[in-house]
């Protein structure tokens, strides 16, 4: 069930270049949100910016989390790109923020027991929504591919390393790790991934990246889920503003906020 609820800002800090982490105390949402789900955050009490903004969750700690200090916290990792996120950088400790969530259909975890290869591919800030998934995985061999334009755009590397995973980094300018896109990196490692007959691929990133991924990946070889981004009106399925074109002949345009944001890669009608 989605809630419309106030949370309290505990912390809002810049972690590197244009990237910030916002920490909100909101136990009901932090407790129930699932990997891949998102929240709609109200940015301003005035009409500017007018609409809420959708954010996937970076970390969440349930009200009964073993570390008392972390209980009920919801972390959002965001990039300052426009009017909305610019305003967010001004959020102060103790301030109330209104949230709607948890929203949307999250990731389906691989069936258990599994010794599968689980490969996460994230471009830019897209990697953030894959972290809760990685943290929720119980079994399998985890590979994480993080891509960005420069080393300043490489996020969550330490977080993933702590999860006992194999982390690869790609930067387009070669300032860190593999030189090239995260997809080039994926292709260069495909053999390793395919060594295991059971393999699950999860991806999140800009539309162009996912579009390229769809062209690259043979659907038979990987079970692949992608988390999509879209401009949203409401976030809870009412306005049909955030649709994506799918291969469904009856209802080609489906809602990213309701039927998604996580889709099977092969269900989307890629260009």
């Amino acid at each position, binding site marked *: 069930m989605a809630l419309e609820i106030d949370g309290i800002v505990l912390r809002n800090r810049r972690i590197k270049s244009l990237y910030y982490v916002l920490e909100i105390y909101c136990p009901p949402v932090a407790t129930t949100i699932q990997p891949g789900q998102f929240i709609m955050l109200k940015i301003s009490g005035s*009409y500017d910016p007018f*609409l809420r903004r959708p954010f996937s969750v970076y970390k969440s700690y349930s009200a009964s989390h073993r570390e008392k200090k972390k209980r009920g916290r919801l972390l959002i990792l965001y990039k300052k790109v426009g009017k909305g996120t610019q305003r967010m950088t001004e959020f102060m400790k103790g301030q109330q923020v209104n949230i709607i969530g948890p929203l949307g259909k999250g990731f389906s975890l691989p069936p258990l027991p599994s010794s599968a290869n689980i490969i996460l591919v994230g471009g830019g800030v897209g990697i953030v929504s894959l972290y809760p998934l990685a943290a929720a995985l119980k079994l399998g061999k985890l590979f994480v591919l993080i891509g960005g334009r420069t080393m300043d755009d490489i996020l969550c590397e330490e977080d993933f390393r702590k999860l006992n995973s194999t982390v690869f980094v790609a930067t387009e300018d070669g300032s860190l790790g593999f030189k090239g896109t995260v997809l080039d990196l994926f292709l260069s490692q495909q053999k390793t991934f395919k060594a295991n007959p059971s393999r699950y691929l999860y991806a999140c990133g800009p539309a162009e990246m996912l579009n390229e991924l769809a062209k690259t990946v043979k659907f038979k070889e990987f079970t692949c889920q992608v988390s999509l981004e879209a401009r949203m009106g409401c976030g809870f399925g009412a306005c049909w*503003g955030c649709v994506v074109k799918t291969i469904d002949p009856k209802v080609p345009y489906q809602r990213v906020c309701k039927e998604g944001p996580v889709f099977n890669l092969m269900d989307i009608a890629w260009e």
Partner: protein
Amino acid sequence: MTVKSIRNPDLSVKIGNIKLENPVIVASGTFGFGEEYEDFLNLNHLGAIIPKGISLKPMVGNPPPRIFETEGGILNSIGLQNPGFEDFFNHKLPYFENIKTHLIINFFGNTQKEYIKLARCFNEVPGISGLEMNISCPNVERGGMAFCSEPKIVYRLVHAVRKSTKLTLIVKLSPNVTDIASIAKSAEEGGADAVSLINTFKAMAINVHSKKPELGNVIGGLSGPAIKPIALRMVWEVSQVVKIPVIGMGGIMKAEDAIEFILVGASAVQIGTANLINPRTGIEVIQGIRRYLVQNKIQRIQKLIGLFKN
């Protein structure tokens, strides 16, 4: 002499044969099929619910992007995506069986025949309190010119639909016309029980970096508080020329906005875009109107309707 204090003002209004408990209706296209809002509010507390507009056959809608935020508003080009009458009847309508609130169906067609057929179909469906005709769509038989743009065509269309249904008939007017008052008058003469206004303003936005439109459909409709003063003026103009009830809408975000519409002659109001940002807007507007009546010692909302006279 002091006026007796008021605890429970009467918020009820009448639109055609529909007696609304309160004058707050949620607008078509912004409230899904009702169930999307059940987590956030008690739907039974609303005056009426108008689900997403229904056509005879399913419509796939426009290509994305379909939504774009502007200053104090949004542009949308959803393209009237809907499952069509049959699927609506089988899969969406049953949800409303357990909801007491009046259900008003918004519908539209590409031809006069389609309007008539749909009006007849809905006439047979139990549980529906009224119909709201969207006349802003292109008339396929007349080269795609919108039905709403000519008084004569509006009269003919409304008259034909009127004869096809016993349900309360509301005609939803477009602001994209030369003289909205004369269109409203034609709808009244055609037999409408009420008019609702306004639909969105045709509008567009260009991205200067890509040098392309922000909407996949190029042109969309503008809604939100940015359009409220124009909507209010139109509701005022229409209220002066028709005798049937007027339902006002356009950028209502809070109770004060709704009261403005009521003061210039609206018997009821619709909440649209605001639902997307604050799903509880409808409820908050009802509470705000009640508070206003108590503070102003007005026993019945009907006393407020059209109180402003020039």
